C-alpha cells in the first residue's frame, strides 16, 4: 500500500510509521503500566493510613480510569517520545515495586 489512510501529514516532515507505532504502543501499554503501579501504591498507602481495604480499592479504581485517559492522551501531545516512555514505564515499574515492598512491611507489621 502506498499510503496509510490514517496519516495526517504535515508539510514539514512526513509522519514516520515507526514513531507512530511507538506512540501507540506507549499510549496503551505505558499508561497501563503507570496506572497499574500507581493504583496499587494508592491502595497500599490508604490501607497503611487506616482506610478499609475495599474503600481504598474503590478510590483507586475511581481515579484509575480517568487517570489512564489523561496519560493516554498525554502520550500523543508530549513532544519528546523518550520522556513519555521513561515516565510511563519508569514510574509504573517503580510504583509497582514500592507497592509490593510496602505491602510486605504492612503484613509483617500487622
Amino acid at each position: 500500500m502506498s499510503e496509510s489512510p490514517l496519516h495526517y501529514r504535515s508539510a514539514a516532515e512526513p509522519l514516520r510509521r515507526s514513531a507512530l507505532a511507538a506512540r501507540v504502543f506507549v499510549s496503551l501499554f505505558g499508561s497501563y503500566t503507570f496506572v497499574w503501579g500507581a493504583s496499587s501504591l494508592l491502595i497500599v498507602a490508604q490501607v497503611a493510613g487506616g482506610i478499609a481495604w475495599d474503600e481504598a480499592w474503590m478510590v483507586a479504581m475511581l481515579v484509575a480510569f480517568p487517570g489512564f485517559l489523561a496519560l493516554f492522551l498525554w502520550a500523543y501531545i508530549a513532544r519528546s517520545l523518550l520522556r513519555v516512555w521513561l515516565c510511563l514505564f519508569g514510574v509504573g515499574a517503580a510504583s509497582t515495586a514500592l507497592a509490593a515492598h510496602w505491602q510486605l512491611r504492612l503484613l509483617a507489621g500487622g
Partner: protein
Amino acid sequence: MFDTVRQAMAWVHTGFGLVLGYVLMVVFFFGTLSVFDREIDRWAVPETRFAVQPMPSFDRVLAPVYQRLRPDPADLERIARRVTGELPDVASLPLVSLFAYTTHRDPVLLVGAEFGVPNAPLDPADDHLHAHGRAQVDPRSGAFLPENRLQIGTDFFYPMHYSLNASPAIIGYWVVGLAAMSMLAALVTGLLIHRRLLRELFTFRPHKRSQRSTLDLHNLTGVVALPFHFFFALTGLLIFAAIYLPVHDSLLRPLDRQHEVLEAAQTGLPHEPAGVPAPLASVDAMVAQAKARWAQRGIPGEVGFLTIEHMGDLNGYVSIFRAGSDRVALVGEGIHFSARTGEILHEDPAPSAVHAVSEFLTGLHLQHFRHWLLRWLYVLGGLVGCVCIATGFIFFTEKRKRQWAHHSPQSLRSVDALAVTAVTGMVLAVLGMLVANRVLPIDLPARAGWEERAFWYTWLCALLHAWVRSTALLGGAVSPAWREQCIGIAALAVLAVTLNWVTTGDHLWHTVTTGYWPVAGVDASLLAVAVIAFTAAVRLYGRGAEAASSAVEPVEASRG
C-alpha cells in the same frame, strides 16, 4: 511528531475511532437493546409470558428447587481437568452455597448454586474448587423452564454488549474495555478539535452537501448526549474494574486475603465452614424479619437477592438484600442471619461516601430501577450514540471518496462495506435471530445454537452483500447496499411481528388491549424500525436517482 495538539488529537480521534468504532457500534447498539432485555426475553420465550412475580417462599417453593438443581456439565468438565482422580457421581456433590435473584421486571427467577468437589486440586494454590449450576425457575410452581430456550435478551444481546459473546469471554471483555477507553478518548479529543463548539451547538444543516450535514449530525449527536456517552463508557469500565485492573488478585493478593479474614471477624459472618453439620432454620421467617427491619428504617421493599453461604454447616448464614427498584444504586441494605438459628448476625451499615458514589455510578449503568421514562431516555441516548459513530464513519469515507477512488480503491470499499455491516447489517442480524427464534421447531435439539447461528450468518451475508455492492462507490455514488439492506430490515421486522402473531397468537392489538407491555413494546418497536428503515430506503433511492441524473458534482475536500 505532530505539529500541533489539535493535529495529535485529530489523529487519535480518527485512528482509534476508525479501528474501534465498529466495536463501539456493537456495544452501543446491544447496550440499547439490553435496556429492554427482559422484555425481549418474553418475546423470545413465549412460555414465560406471565405476570411479574416477587421472590417466592424459600421454605415451600425454593428449597425443593435447589435439591433438584445440578452442576452445569461444561463446568464439571473444566473442574475435572483441575483435580486428581475421577469426580464422584453428580448427584452426590454437596451444595455449599446458593443464590436466588429477581428484579421488578422478572416473571421468572434465576437460581444458582455452588457444589463442593471432594477431589484434591492438582495445583495446591487452586483453592476455589466449586462446580456451578444455574437455572430459570417458574416462581409460581418451582418448575425449571425448558433448557433449550434461549433468553435472547439476557443471554445473548446483553452479553454481546460487554463481551461480544467472544469465546473465551475474557477476550471480549478486553476488546470492549479498549473500545470504551477509545470512546472516552474520542469524546475528549472530539471536543478539543471541534472548532465552533458553542456556536454550533444546535446546528444541523441537512440541505447542505452530504459531507457538511454528516459532520453536523456527528457533532450534534456527540455533543448533546456527551454526559450520557462519557458516563456510560466510564461506568462500564468501572463495573469491570476488577477484570481490567486486577491488582487485588495478583500484586495485592496478600492484602486482599488479610482483608477477607478481618472482615469476617468484624461482621461476624464466618469466612470458612466449621465442618460440623447443622440444619437450616426457616428462611421465610428471616425474609419477614428483614422486610420488617427495612420498613422500620423507612425503606420498605421487596427481596431482590438472597444467598446462603456454607449451606448445611454450623457456620452457615443467610444474606437477604433489598431490590433497588426505587433508586439508582443496586441491591443493598443486606441483612445477614445465622442459618441455624435465624438470628440476625449483621446488618450492612449505610455506605460510606466513596461507596455511595461507586454504587450510584454502577447503578446508573446497570439500571435496576423502576422508571420507564428514564429507561426510554437511555434507549434514545444509546441510539444517538450509534448515530454519532455511524456518521463518523460516513464522514470519513465521504471525505476521502474522491482521493481514494484512484489510489486505494480497496481500502475505500472495505471501510464502507464494514460501515454498512456495522449499521444496517447489525440490525439485520438481530432481526434474523428473532425470525429464527419463531420459525425453528420448538423441540429442535440445541435450538439455542441454531438461533445464534442465524444471527452470525445473517450478519456475514450482510457483510458479503455490502462488499459486493460497494463497487458503486468508485464511481462516486453512495453504495446501494445501504438502501437494499434498509429494505431487508423493513421486510424482516414485519416478518418477525407476523411470525410472533402466527406462532403464539399474541398480535399487537391483543397485547395492547390486554396491557401486556413487554411483548406489545417489542412488536411496536419492530414495526417502528420497519417504518424508519423503509423511509430511509425511499430517500436513498431518491438520492441515488438524483446523483445519477446530475452526473458528477464537484466536491471540495476541505473540512469546516
